[in-house]
């Protein structure tokens, strides 16, 4: 994708999100503060979820079953249970993070599990490291997970 295409896509996406994020009477569904919290949530979620998903998908270690159990339990316990009566920015961030991390882990894990092991074998044989193989392959999944987490968190509506 060329740079101009990326810019056009970004502009279109921003216009679409800002345009769609309004009720018919014109009031915004999400304030600028809420949107920036959602951006931060998406970035932090993906940053924490990527190594977790890679370890689950590509490494053998003791306690893997425990990590899977933790992931399933975290997916099953939704942050709506935890919402304080009057959410502040910090509590909204933590609340969204509790939803964003498991979602991002699942998306990245499913992609990372499908890497061909031959690539890792070849890289290790040539004296390289696993990260040089993992990082380029995982990039599309990360780029997919971040917007999805953002959308889940940005328009998580609360009746005020």
């Amino acid at each position: 994708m060329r740079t101009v295409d990326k810019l056009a896509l970004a502009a279109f996406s921003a216009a679409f999100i800002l345009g769609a994020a309004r009720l018919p009477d014109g009031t915004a569904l999400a304030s600028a503060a809420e949107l920036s919290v959602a951006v931060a949530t998406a970035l932090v979620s993906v940053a924490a979820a990527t190594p977790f998903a890679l370890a689950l998908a590509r490494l053998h270690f003791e306690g893997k079953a425990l990590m899977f159990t933790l992931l399933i339990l975290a997916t099953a316990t939704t942050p709506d249970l935890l919402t304080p009566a009057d959410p502040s920015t910090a509590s909204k961030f933590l609340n969204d993070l509790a939803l964003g991390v498991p979602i991002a882990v699942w998306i990245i894990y499913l992609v990372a599990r499908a890497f061909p092991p031959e690539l890792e074998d070849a890289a290790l044989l040539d004296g390289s490291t696993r990260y040089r193989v993992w990082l380029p392959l995982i990039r599309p999944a990360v780029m997919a997970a971040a917007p999805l987490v953002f959308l889940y968190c940005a328009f998580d509506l609360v009746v005020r």
Partner: protein
Amino acid sequence: MSDLSNELSPTTAPADNGLAWILCAPAAAAMVVLNLFPAGTALLHSPVLPVTGELAAWGNALLVIGGRALVMSGMILAIEIPLALYLATVALRRSRSPRVTTTPGLLLAATVAGFSWRLLFGDGIGFVDPRSSVWTTILVEVWRSLPLATLLFYATLDRTARDLTQVARLDGATFAQVVRRIYVPICRPAMLLLLGLRLIDYLRAVNVSASSPPAAERAVWTLLVLGVATLAIGIAPGRETPR
């Protein structure tokens, strides 16, 4: 040679305990602190009703776990997965016409779902009674989530299934055998993802209905299951929190 391959192959390599735990630590800590600790605390407090202080024993837990939303979520999955798989196989065929006819419908699904809800629940137009509203909700929800499911299946099948299907067909496999032996196994990770997303939607739906007074329950959960579609008609999914 066997030592070398043991060392190199990630599938047979010795345990990477240290590295794996370092990689897992941030997300694991976040999940324990943000998900498990509050959920455990909530479970501990769950036998007592928050407002009145009455002892509800397992009543609260049953309210959260059981209910119509669980049945509805199961039915939505049971309808949407075969339908999406069918649409994906239709789009996978070489003929261009099925793709041309299905794609605009899929792209418009969210908008159409929103307008159908406006018709069903709008002031003066709404005609849905509680019994049919369950089926309406299931229908609209299937319609809404069908594009994502279809695209997921299509993307998964597009990469790998064409050659396998051709080989299987040459060997005399029927369409049903191709679906059972090729399409379903390849699409299993995508199905898992759909199941996870549905689980999240289900738990959110139940949470709202569980925290609402009985009179408001019906209206709240039927709206909530909609998610994105409600944006189109300007009705936000309600969430009631104890003050």
